[in-house]
């Protein structure tokens, strides 16, 4: 799948923004680990902390999860309005 304009990498959400997960690119093992932590298509994610570089923290299904920037670039989300 090639990303469309409303499909952005999770890493592009700024602190406080929300989105819903669309799809993953990249390896199966990372996707499995992400899925078991609650990252599945349709799940809502809140960007809890994103300073533009380094790792970031997102809240998914009530859990805060730290992700490396590389991992967050492989999760595509649709930014929620507002």
């Amino acid at each position: 799948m090639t990303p469309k304009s409303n499909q952005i990498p999770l890493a592009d959400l700024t602190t406080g923004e929300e989105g819903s997960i669309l799809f993953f690119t990249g390896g199966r093992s990372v996707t499995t680990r992400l899925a078991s932590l609650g990252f599945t298509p349709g799940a809502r994610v809140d960007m809890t902390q994103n300073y533009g570089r380094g790792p970031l923290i997102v809240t998914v299904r009530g859990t805060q999860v730290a992700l490396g920037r590389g991992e967050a670039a492989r999760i595509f989300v649709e930014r929620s309005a507002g």
Partner: protein
Amino acid sequence: MSDCHETSASTRVIVREKMPLIALAGQPNVGKSTLFNLLTGLNQHVGNWPGKTVERREGSFIFDDRSYGLVDLPGTYSLTANSPEEVIAREFILRERPDVVVAVVNAANLERSLYLVAELVALPTPIIVALNMMDVAAQEGMRIEPEVLEAALGVPVVPMTATRTAGTRELLRLLRETLDGHRLTNPRQPEIRADHRAALDEITRCIIGHVPEPYPAEWIALKLLEGDAEITRTIQNALPPEKWEAVYAVLRQHDDALLAVASGRYEWIGRMVRAAVVQPRMGQITWTKQLDRWAAHPFWGMAILAGILGLVFWLTFTIGSPVQGWLDTQVVGGLSNLAGQMLANAPFWLKGLIVDGVLGGAGAVITFLPIMVIFFAAFGVLEDTGYMARAAYVMDNLMHLMGLHGKSFLPLFLGFGCNVPAVMGTRVVDSKPARLLTILIAPLVPCTARMAVVAFLAPAFFGPKALLVSWTLVLFSIIILVLSGSLLNQVIFKGQRSAFIMEMPLYHLPNTRTIGLLVWQRSLSFVKKAGTNILAMAVVIWALSVLPNGDFGTSYLIQFGKWVAPVGRWMGLDWRLTVALITSFPAKENSIATLGVIFGSSRTAGLAQTLTSTYSTASALSFLVATMFFIPCMATVAVIRQETNSWGWTLLNIGLFLVISIVAASGVYHLALAVGL
């Protein structure tokens, strides 16, 4: 021989009949260890899962005059083979067939922590859900109805707060009822998303009749769809080729099925949560988020981490060092004197063996305990409060320089106390290459034993500048660590990097019982593992230092030192310093004792002056640098062998440190000469 086997097999059956086996399963950060400690107390035993470097904790407890065996399964988010932990957990349930699995879930985070339950209900073992951390849920303004959850799940549910020992009696009663067959469980199964239902049925049809024991066919089909590498391999070997072709064709068509399976489980969870949670979490900003604004901030987070590390070192040196000194002079010294008097008429070798060999070795272990205990306790508190995840998070950027990520920082930090727990602590690193790299560089972290050598020599040679020299040496070690880390990552691991995915648990107050047991177990395992090794080596080194003539001056050790002295000269070390360096292998602080013996002053008081008048500042500096980077101590080498399970990696490690110490010390020596020291 066969008799033996039969006896042991039948005893095993009897034990099983007498004592029901219960397994504790749960995700990380749900309070599973707290519950385990609560149930077993000190009746627990820590070992390793066979062939794995994953901690296996088991124990027993008595309830209403009946004994129960309890196994703490590794904390895992799922049962798909992402790591050894997941494989261990599911293989244990499927092969060892525990009588009941207690699934611990976090009431304050049902949605996430029920995921493992969604996997457990597919296995053929009765389960009980321990709805733990009810207090945290209440603090967050949530209201949960356990009876409704029980009805929705179709398995017994017990609300509890393990940190306050609330709900354990109910759990135990429920366990007994389940074991006695008074409670029948009939779990509701999650369903796969509709678009993949047909694929699942098709695969199940193909594999039925070919699935090896003890796996249930439907479960295998699900794991195949999830792309579980291990199950895929097993089934590929078990199926006739044409059947496997058919299965493989379905799998290829549905390569996104793993998300369909996971989504199916979350839909199932969603139904449970909607039914049981009458009042969801309020949208308030929790104090975890408040604290994280500082603790996880790129700048302030580092500052806080530096402050905490500083505090731990301060505690170690203000409490640990005096106790260590007291143990050394009073207890070990006293025992040595006593033994010396008692053995005054014994042959010299017996006296030497006991006083210098055995007591010397045991002394090294005992005097290390205070520092280890402080470190383990500090680490336990940081772990238990949830702060450790923040430390890993803020260090992630820096660790990237070495191709590692934040999780590797934690074991490296432990290394400041002692490299032994550091190497063992690399178990938190989830990818194998990253873990091996962390093990390789962990001994570059200056441990307290090396700092003790520095603390003894630096004031003698550098006077008021001793503190500056010590800190420079630490800084130098860290620079070398980062450099070797990035170099090794490029050369051996070709720059590959593992994914950084880590839960940030909510902060909570530390539980003294959990930390107490942790300190107790880790200290015990240090004494056992390091203790026996150090003791054995101390005896060997003592023997080398008196054989063949019963005189140190002509001993094998001295001969060896003189033989390798040319290498020492590159570093500006004479044979005495070289021998001292070599004897730092059994325990780092030995080098001072060796110098004491060589210079003939048994008590170290006069030694400092003797050394200052014998050696140039450049040689002293070089000796300190060589000490910092010399081959890791024996105990560390032993755990490196144990944790890597490979002599190749262990020898590589020894070689690496030998090269680093010789190169660094020679460099520093010649630099010091050049600037006229």
